[in-house]
C-alpha cells in the first residue's frame, strides 16, 4: 500500500498519479492548523510500503520529518522510480540524479509538473493531536497589488542590462500592456533595484507563464531553473552568445532600452 499525503491542489493530484503507478494508493490528509511534526508523526505511524507526497513546501517538509522520525532516507523531487532506483531533480532541475533509495518504507516526494495529474478519489482524514511542536498560529493575508509572479500568464523580466532601478519603468510599461507581472534576475535584487519577491530563479519564484520575456538577462542556470516552467521564452539581449539564447524560443539581438519601448509602441499602434 502506498500512503499518499494530499491537499486539494494540482500538485497533490500529480503525486497521486505517480503513486498510482507504484501500487494501491491510500490518500490521506489532515484538518486544522498546520503542525508539521504532529502531522508527520501520524503519517509515520501508518503501515506502508511507501510514503509519497507532492514536492511542495509542505510535502517536502512533512516527509523530511517522517524520514527523521523513522531514521530512513528521503528522496525529494523524484521524477521516476524503478525498483529501488529513483531519478530526482538536482540543481533546481538543471541536472537529474539517479540514486538508489535504500530503506523501508520508501519515502519520496514527486517533482512538480513532471507527471500528469490523476483523480485524487477518496481521501481519509487522519487524526494528529497537538504535540506542542511549532504550528501555524495565524495567517496574515498580504494585499497583493496586481498579478502574482507565480501565476502570471506573461512575465516581463529585467536583468543587469536594465542598469538601474529607474530603468525598470520600460519593463513595467510592457508588463502592464500585456497584463503581466514584472520579474527580475538575482543580480537585480542583490543590487537593491527590485524586491526579492520579484526574483525569478531557483531561489526565487518558479514561474509557469505562457510567455517569459527576459530583457538584459544573461541566463545563469539558477535563473533558468525558475524560468523554464514558461511555455515560451523570448530573450532580448545585446549579446548573441548569451547563455539565455540556449533556453529561448525567440530572441531579439539588440539593446533592451530601444527594443522594449519599441514593442510597447507597436502594441499600442496595433491596438489603435
Amino acid at each position: 500500500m502506498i500512503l499518499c499525503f494530499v491537499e486539494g491542489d494540482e500538485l497533490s493530484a500529480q503525486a497521486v498519479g505517480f503513486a498510482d503507478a507504484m501500487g494501491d494508493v491510500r490518500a490521506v490528509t489532515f484538518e486544522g492548523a498546520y503542525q508539521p511534526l504532529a502531522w508527520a508523526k501520524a503519517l509515520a505511524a501508518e503501515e506502508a510500503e511507501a510514503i509519497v507526497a507532492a514536492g511542495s513546501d509542505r510535502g517536502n517538509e512533512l516527509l523530511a520529518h517522517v524520514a527523521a522520525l523513522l531514521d530512513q532516507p528521503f528522496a525529494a523531487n523524484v521524477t521516476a522510480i524503478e525498483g529501488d532506483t529513483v531519478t530526482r531533480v538536482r540543481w533546481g532541475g538543471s541536472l537529474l540524479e539517479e540514486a538508489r533509495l535504500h530503506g523501508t518504507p520508501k519515502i519520496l516526494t514527486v517533482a512538480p509538473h513532471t507527471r500528469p495529474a490523476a483523480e485524487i478519489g477518496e481521501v481519509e482524514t487522519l487524526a494528529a493531536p497537538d504535540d506542542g511542536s511549532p504550528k501555524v498560529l495565524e495567517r496574515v493575508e498580504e494585499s497583493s497589488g496586481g498579478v502574482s509572479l507565480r501565476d502570471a500568464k506573461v512575465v516581463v523580466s529585467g536583468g543587469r542590462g536594465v542598469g538601474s532601478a529607474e530603468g525598470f519603468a520600460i519593463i513595467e510599461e510592457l508588463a502592464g500592456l500585456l497584463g503581466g507581472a514584472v520579474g527580475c534576475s538575482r543580480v537585480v535584487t542583490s543590487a537593491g533595484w527590485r524586491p526579492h519577491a520579484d526574483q525569478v530563479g531557483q531561489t526565487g519564484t518558479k514561474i509557469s507563464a505562457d510567455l517569459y520575456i527576459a530583457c538584459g538577462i544573461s541566463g545563469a542556470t539558477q535563473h533558468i531553473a525558475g524560468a523554464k516552467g514558461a511555455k515560451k521564452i523570448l530573450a532580448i539581449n545585446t549579446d548573441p552568445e548569451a547563455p539565455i539564447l540556449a533556453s529561448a524560443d525567440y530572441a531579439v539581438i539588440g539593446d533592451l532600452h530601444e527594443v522594449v519601448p519599441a514593442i510597447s509602441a507597436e502594441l499600442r499602434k496595433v491596438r489603435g
Partner: protein
Amino acid sequence: MVLTADAQAIETRHLGFAISPHEECAVEEAVRIGGEVVVLTLGPAEAEEQLRDCMAVGADRGILLQTGGEEWDAQATAAAIVDAVRAEGGFDLILFGNESADAGGYQVGIRVAHALGLPVVTGLKKIEVEGGNVRCERDAGGARDVYEAPLPAVLTVLEGLNLPRYPSVPGRLRAKSKPVAVVEPARPASQLEKLRLVVPEGQGKQAEILENAVQVVAVLQSLGVA
C-alpha cells in the same frame, strides 16, 4: 552543464565556488541577531574559503567538517553536524538554508533538529528573536504563516529573508586571523546512494531571431498574449 567523465559530479575545474543564496542569508541573519556567530560547513579542505567569506561579513569563528571531496547524503551530513553541535555544548539558535542549491534534499536541518530534540520551523522569510522565543514567518501563496518556537531552536531560511552585505576590505583582513577548527568525521554508507548524474534532454534550443518590434508583436499575437 558539463559533467565529469564518471558522471558523478559537475566538471568544476574551470568554475569557482560560492555560498548558496539561502545559506548566505542565514549567515547575514545570524550576524544581525548578534552574539557569538559560529559558521559550519561540511566539504573538502577548499571549503575553508567559504567559511572565511562568512567570517568576513561578521561570523566569529568556523568549523570545517572536512571530507575527501566525495558527496555525503543528507543523513550522513546531518549526523556529522549533530556530533559537532554536541561537541560545542549546543547553541541558542541553529540556522540552515532551507534546501541546498546542489542536492536539494530539503531535510538536513529537520534531521538535526530531531536528533537534538529541538523545535524546528522551515522555509522562513522573517525571524524575530524576542527573549527566549523566536517568532517567524513563512510565505504561503499570497499570505504569510506565523510560527513561534522556544529557544534553543533550529530554523531553516530562504533567500529574501534579508539583503546580505558585501564583505569590506577590513572585514576580509580580519577574517584571515579568525579561528577555523577542522574535524574529519567518518563517512557512513549512503542510504540515498548516488549512482550517476544526467543532463536532462531539451537543453540547447535554437532561438528564432526576430528582427524588429513588428515581428515581436506578431509572435505575441500568435501566442495569444497580445
